[in-house]
């Protein structure tokens, strides 16, 4: 999006140059052809991006919307026939007994994950701002969760969190903190907390990296000047770091929310939405409907509900960033 606006701006600029630099009469036509060629090239460079966006983002989104108004079954794939059903799919998924559970879990999962990732990520980012030995090595080690495929992370955490032989319960047991294993993934009251915990662990590197980058941008002089006025420690954070970091924070939070809303692999890998649907989110339910029960129309409808929720956050983000620019 920003690419096109930048380009249109740059294509008008040669025009203004031309009126100003109208001295060399012989040079003008040659320059004009060069400009024209340049503009063609500029457009050509855009083509791959436009084609890519239309094919891999535009088409699936439109298709998903269309699908949600159809009775789309396995037979549709072979026959191509998908009768229109209006809002029936939406009515079915929104009125299903599972929807309120999934919606609540989605909210809890997203809010919990974002809060944990952000707070820990920010704390670590500030911590790593100091200069100390092994700083670089430790920081790169913290990136590890990010590098692992999600399916591997969830499989390993499933072992760690196992009630009887999991490493976590062994550890707590050895410390004498517990006597019987805690059913992290098989208790309806703990499973969501455990899943959120794992997702926080996975999200920390992202928050740490972006926030650390943002902190590097804040000039040291501000802190030096602040310390002269007595702003150190917490005060320096409140009055210098936080306000200077705000644009980065809003990016991290909004991207985090949109990523987290659609988390699928981690939940499927850890609990499959169980026990008794206690970790079922809109994303996992939509996946189940489409790929396990073969109700593609209903799956698409539920997917679109998730898209709408994400859009709300996207709009909030755009508004926030526009205000920041206006200021």
């Amino acid at each position, binding site marked *: 999006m920003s690419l096109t606006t930048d380009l249109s701006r740059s294509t008008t600029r040669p025009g203004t140059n031309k009126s100003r630099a109208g001295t060399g009469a012989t040079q003008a036509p040659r320059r004009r052809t060069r400009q024209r060629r340049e*503009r063609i090239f500029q*457009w050509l460079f855009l*083509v791959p991006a436009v*084609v890519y966006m239309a*094919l891999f983002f535009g088409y699936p989104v439109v298709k998903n919307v269309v699908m949600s108004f159809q009775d789309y079954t*396995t037979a549709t794939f072979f026959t191509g026939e998908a009768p229109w059903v209006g809002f029936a799919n939406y009515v079915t998924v929104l009125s299903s007994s599972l929807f309120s559970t999934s919606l609540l879990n989605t909210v809890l999962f997203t809010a919990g994950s974002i809060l944990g990732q952000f707070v820990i990520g920010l704390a670590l980012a500030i911590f790593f701002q100091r200069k100390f030995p092994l700083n670089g090595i430790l920081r790169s080690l913290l990136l590890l969760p990010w590098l692992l495929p999600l399916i591997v992370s969830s499989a390993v955490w499933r072992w760690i969190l196992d009630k*009887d032989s999991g490493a976590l319960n062994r550890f707590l047991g050895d410390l004498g903190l517990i006597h019987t294993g805690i059913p992290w993934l098989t208790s309806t009251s703990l499973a969501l907390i455990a899943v959120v915990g794992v997702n926080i662990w996975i999200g920390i590197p992202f928050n740490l990296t972006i926030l650390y980058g943002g902190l590097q941008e804040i000039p040291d002089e501000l802190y030096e000047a602040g310390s002269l006025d007595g702003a150190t420690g917490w005060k320096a954070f409140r009055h210098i770091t936080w306000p200077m970091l705000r644009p980065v924070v809003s990016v991290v939070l909004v991207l985090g929310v949109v990523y987290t809303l659609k988390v699928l692999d981690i939940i499927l890998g850890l609990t499959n939405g169980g026990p008794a*649907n206690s970790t079922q989110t809109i994303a996992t339910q939509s996946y189940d409907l489409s*790929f*396990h029960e073969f109700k593609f129309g209903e799956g698409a409808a539920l997917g679109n509900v998730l898209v709408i929720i994400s859009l709300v956050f996207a709009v909030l983000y755009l508004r926030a960033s526009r205000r920041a620019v206006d200021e």
Partner: protein
Amino acid sequence: MKSALRTTRPLALAVAALVGLPLFVSGCGSSPAASSSEAVTEISVMDYYNNEPDKSFIGDALTKCGTKAGVTIKRETVPGKSLISKVLQQSSSKTLPDVLMLDNPDLQQIAATGALAPLADFKISTDGFAPGVLSAGTYKDKVYGLAPTVNTIALFYNKDILAKAGVTPPTTWDELKAAAAKLTAGDQYGLAFNANPTYEGTWQFLPVMWSNGGDEKKIDTKETEQALQLWTDLVKDGSVSSSALNWTQADVKDQFMAGKAAMMVNGPWQIPSLDKQPTLQYGVVKIPVQEAGQTSVAPLGGEVWTVPQTGNKARQAKAAEVVACLNSDENQLAMAKVRNTIPSKTTLAGTFASENPKLATFTELIKTARARTGQLGEGWPAQATKIYTAIQTALTGKASPADALKQAQASK
């Protein structure tokens, strides 16, 4: 005028690229459209045996059958989880393989699309197959798929642990509960099964449900409630770890192999791993029934081979020859032996059981094993979801078995 041209040309290019690209893509995907009169020298096959040793066993059988039919086999193996989505993609782009393997409960979905050819069109005989096997391959009175070998689940027990505790393998629910309780001590649970929120959890529950007369079409009945009560009691009294709510069948096997479960519900495909641990002495019995005298009804597992409607009669005929060959007596026995599965023709069961005593219990069970889709057809996935939801609700104590089943049956 000039400026307009200047701006439209790149646009036109973009449009041309957009229009051309899908053409190019679809051009790549289309299958070699040989006309029916041409001699068929090669047929394509797709299955999900992508791990050794099954990959080679099935590959060898396919090659042999191909040679017999005078064609070479172009085989593609895909991971189990992605087979169905691949099949759906291929059926929409009309690029299905000539021979397609499907997990038996999925056959209904694919047959319902019209993508498969009835095997009667090719005069493939269905004589001698176990009734459950045929019903798994049948959609709306026509047989679309045949399984050369099948499997099911039974009760594995650790001989040493049971002998030490003076426990004999249970045959009724009461004996099962008593044995499991007695075998539970310290780190060791009496029994392990899988009650996770996937179709696996449903599959492992089916033997107790069916043996007691439960019906998958209507699950809020006394019979199914009693079965779910049994599962719930076993978890509640600690004979089965509550981790069962999250275990897969592979996890259950790991617990059994590590000596952390004295008995387990599992299938014969675990035998190769179990045999890798020579110190482990195990036996296999039928899953207990509520009262002595009831028949232990097991669910039928295994994969069926089908001939998709590719539109090329000559290739389909060759494909059918390969499917028929895979299901021949000779191949059934050979594949069953190496793959630790059971021949699907009951006529072969007797000799097979005597030659493979480890598989004797499973062979016995196959005769009366039931297909999951036998009654519900395409409706199976939705109902299977209700069953595992009810199991999870009852096992976590969120509702009594009766209420859990009632809620699940009423849910949409």
